[in-house]
């Protein structure tokens, strides 16, 4: 069972874009000394390239066995990050940047495991690339007995995409356009207003933030909204691949 070729090509193109953007993001953060989550960006590069290779076997650069090893390592890394997060902040706390929750790392564990599942479940395509590529096929062998697992991955990924999109409003420029006479910051998307007095010392005032960043060349490239868009694109693409393999 496989989907239409043009659709696989389309998703593969999107994944390559995500991988290129994530690589550029890493480069930009190094060039302009901006703190980023390098592990997330590296993971997005790996997953972007791997998924593009699964969708279009001709562009798979490395053998399946290597990918399997890579995603075992990625899964273990994020499990370790989950453990570290829980130890420092508890189950319901937030990361040092006060944006990320435990779910951020759990989602990446699920993404890595989903990648691993897809490599284990899909049968290699005959005549695939020298890299040992594989086309998108239905699940085979014993993995067909575990159809509940991809379904679970699918639910988590799509919920994560939706959750990410819901939070996208917080990166909207409208945040800086709160009415000046009123000392509140209106959260974009209808969130609760935050009074200026409640703003923590580490965070610039909206106008200051705008002033500081408007001429910054890294601003657009490192925009959190773009990163969120990449995450959504990856979740949707991975969701499609899992559905094809159900």
């Amino acid at each position, binding site marked *: 069972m496989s989907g239409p070729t043009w659709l696989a090509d389309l998703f593969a193109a999107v994944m390559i874009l995500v991988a290129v953007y994530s690589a550029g993001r890493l480069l930009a953060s190094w060039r302009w000394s901006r*703190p*980023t989550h390098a592990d997330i960006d590296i993971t997005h590069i790996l997953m972007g390239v791997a998924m593009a290779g699964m969708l279009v076997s001709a562009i798979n650069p490395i053998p399946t066995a290597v990918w399997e090893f890579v995603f075992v390592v990625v899964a273990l890394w994020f499990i370790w990050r989950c453990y570290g997060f829980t130890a420092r902040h508890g189950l319901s706390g937030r990361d040092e940047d006060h*944006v990320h929750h435990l779910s951020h790392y759990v989602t990446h564990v699920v993404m890595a495991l989903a990648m691993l599942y897809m490599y284990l479940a899909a049968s290699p395509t005959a005549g695939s690339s020298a890299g040992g590529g594989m086309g998108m096929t239905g699940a085979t062998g014993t993995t067909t007995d575990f159809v509940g697992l991809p379904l679970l991955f699918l639910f988590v990924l799509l919920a994560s995409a939706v959750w990410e999109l819901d939070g996208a409003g917080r990166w909207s420029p409208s945040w800086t356009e709160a009415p000046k006479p009123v000392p509140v910051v209106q959260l974009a998307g209808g969130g609760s207003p935050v009074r200026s007095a409640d703003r923590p010392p580490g965070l610039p005032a909206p106008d200051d933030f705008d002033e500081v960043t408007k001429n910054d060349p890294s601003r657009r490239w490192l925009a959190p909204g773009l990163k969120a868009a990449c995450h959504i694109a990856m979740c949707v693409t991975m969701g499609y691949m899992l559905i094809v393999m159900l």
Partner: protein
Amino acid sequence: MSDISSALPSSMAPRAGAISARAWARPEHLRKLQLVLASIWLLDGMLQLQAFFFTRAFGNQMIPMTAAGNPSLIASPITWSGTLIAHHAVLADSFFAVFQVAIGLGIAWRPTTRVALAASIVWSLGVWWVGEGLGGVVSGAANPVNGAPGAVMIYALLAVLLWPSDRAGRSPSFTAAQMVGERVAKALWFVLWASLAYFAVLGENRSSDGLSSLIGAETTGEPGWVASLDRHTARLVDHRGLVVMVVLAVLLAIVAVGTFLPARVANATLVAAIVLGIAIWIVGENFGALFTNGATDVNSGPLLVLLSISYWRRAADPAPEGV
């Protein structure tokens, strides 16, 4: 899951322990339910991307099946649509998929939530006719065990009940009443569940082996363990169809009237509704037939659960201290 810190120069980057981004308000209960609905729509859109739906068989075989038993006034547009879809299979299915994905993402993105919910109502009504043959309501084939009166009707109902409401001063005892008010919300709940109770004992559903045949026929295309579950269940209810369906009808009727009872009892009936929704989804709907590569949606089970949660009675807010 994105970081604002990366957009700041390192001199302004947050120190550990300092709040670096706008405090993000967690979605309130209504919003959470909307997001679950958005996830389901997104899943439906993704399901529409399965290879089968890009073939002529979708329009030639699957769609016309829903016309069976319906009067010609209802059946003719279904047949016509099926032919049209078959002739433009790729274009039609691409549109169906993109539209449903757009609804899911639209609900999730706050500026477009209302537009997406409105679009979902229109879409649901169209699909209820063309894709589900009005859920077998007119043809007499409706059976709550396999999704009657049609999952898409519950999508439409949820869109109405979960419509964003910013009416000041309104604090209903359950989320579903936020937009339409408690009286209307309770009436809608009653109509839905009472109709399910009615359909349970309608026509063929009362026969002693009707339920067994229905479940037994669902094994096609399912993985081994789901097919095995079906066969066991079919054997269990064989020749007991009438009794099982009468019991089911009574339970559904209790759930229907439960919404008018005091909060604690109402919540107990909501638990029963959730259990029934899950049972129907597993046994009657085979997890929405998601494993067959031919499912267009998750079917009614998860939607009944989501609907039940939206009717959950909240505990009354405690009076402020000193009052």
